[in-house]
């Protein structure tokens, strides 16, 4: 049940790796062939490609990004999102669009249904629960989509990841990348628990990402 990997995907991924000089560290888990939701901080359009390119080829073929429908559904963007990377495009509310928010993971049950369906029995997702690209100085509070999806699919492993320096390589609002060196750290999977409140779970998930920052107190 793997997706056909588009030849352009490999080209774009190689280019992103070259430009970002990304150092990949699997600290809390190994790249295993199991269903996962990778959730990471979000500062750059390169985030998804870099994270995807850090996976072994076998995992790339079953890992799909989640992206905002209104931004990615037209023209060349749609081609890249849908044909090249098999992205799951989700709706975000009018308020979210106005704020320039990426996937409003706080969105209604329809979106959660869509994400759960996209996971299916074989796929993994890449999710940026901040909902929008930040400046890189701090990780914004997480939107609730991650919580609802985790509750719906407790069998899928939740893997936190931290992308460092991509805000300097291709920040929001820029279209030309500057080739600094970045790093990507995968942390230990977090467990979903029924007893935990939504806010507590989301705070814990965010903390799991923040703890992976280079230089963060271990």
């Amino acid at each position, binding site marked *: 049940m793997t997706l056909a990997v588009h030849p352009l995907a490999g080209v774009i991924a190689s280019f992103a790796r070259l430009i970002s*000089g990304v*150092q990949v560290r699997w600290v809390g888990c190994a790249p295993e062939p199991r269903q996962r939701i990778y959730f990471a901080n979000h500062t750059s359009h390169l985030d998804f490609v870099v994270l995807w390119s850090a996976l072994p080829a076998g995992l790339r073929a079953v890992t799909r990004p989640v992206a905002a429908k209104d931004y990615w559904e037209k023209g060349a963007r749609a081609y890249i999102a849908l044909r090249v990377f098999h992205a799951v495009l989700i709706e975000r509310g009018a308020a979210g669009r106005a704020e320039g928010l990426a996937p409003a993971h706080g969105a209604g049950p329809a979106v959660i249904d869509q994400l759960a369906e996209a996971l299916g029995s074989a796929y993994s997702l890449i999710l940026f629960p901040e909902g929008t690209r930040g*400046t890189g100085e701090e990780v914004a509070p997480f939107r609730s989509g991650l919580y609802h999806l985790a509750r719906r699919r407790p069998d899928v492993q939740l893997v936190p990841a931290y992308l460092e*320096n991509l*805000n*300097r390589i291709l*920040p929001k609002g*820029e279209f*030309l*990348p*500057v*080739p*600094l*060196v970045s790093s990507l750290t995968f942390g230990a999977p977090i467990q979903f628990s029924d007893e935990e409140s939504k806010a507590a779970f989301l705070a814990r998930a965010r903390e799991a990402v923040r703890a992976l920052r280079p230089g963060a107190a271990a």
Partner: protein
Amino acid sequence: MIARIFRDPQLTWLFGGVLALLVVATVIGALLRRAAKTDSARAVIDNLNSRTRAWWKMCAIFALSLLIGRIGTLVLFYLLSFLALREYLTLVPTRHGDHRTLFWSFFIITPLQYYLIGISWYGFFAILIPVFAFLFVPTRIALAGDPQHFLERAAKISFGLMICSYCLSYAPALLLLRIPGFEGHDARLLLYLVIVDQMSDVFQYIWGKLLGRHKIAPVVSPNKTWEGFVGGIASATLLGTGIWWATPFTRLQSAGLSLAITLLGFFGGLVMSAIKRDAGVKDYGAVIEGHGGILDRIDSLCFAAPVFFHLVRYYFVP
């Protein structure tokens, strides 16, 4: 093109010498590894051997670029500048307002610097970065509209361009010098600089490991000792004097120039160490493992190349 090397027996000798040295270093490294008893000794030897392996690769790349000729050499040094600048700017904090300036630094100013060497335009090559880029960088940052830490940001980027692009580009710029009676042998001059400079680093490391007691600047660079400094400078100067036959210099001139190269190389290492300490890391390669500390290897060359160039130009080019 390969014929170029064999047509020039001195160049063959220089390369042959480097090759012989690498073989000897590899054999000694393997013997030491076998003889090492303790874990700490093994760690030192492993470090030494990984340096030797890196040397093999660097020499192969360098030889290849010289074989290709001037364009190969310029491309190689542009890549070195690019990687050094990348390491430096990754370490030094910049802000979003610097983004376009950084893009210019990597993809326009630095390539232009090497292009000017390629078309032998000395007058422009010598002022592109100290004059034009120096004025461009603060202007572009000011235009971006973020005044926070302005002077610091402009200074950091200008410094990076000066060291990583401008100073380093003086090494391949040696190919521009027209020394009477030495035409067509300019590759030897570059090789001479690189050999003396890099061997000075190696000798300082070896002498420091063998005899190092008294630290020169313990806070800035804990590995630099007076014993390593004196031994390294003296050995490399002797080596440089010993290969005078490959240069347009007399023995005495070669000794003086080697001394200048090794001293400047030492200063370069010291200054780049101070920057690393300031940023709180041990070496550039440690921040960016796998992208391995290009700047750690060429910091000495960045300082030695421009001074060597201008000494030679002043005394030997009419």
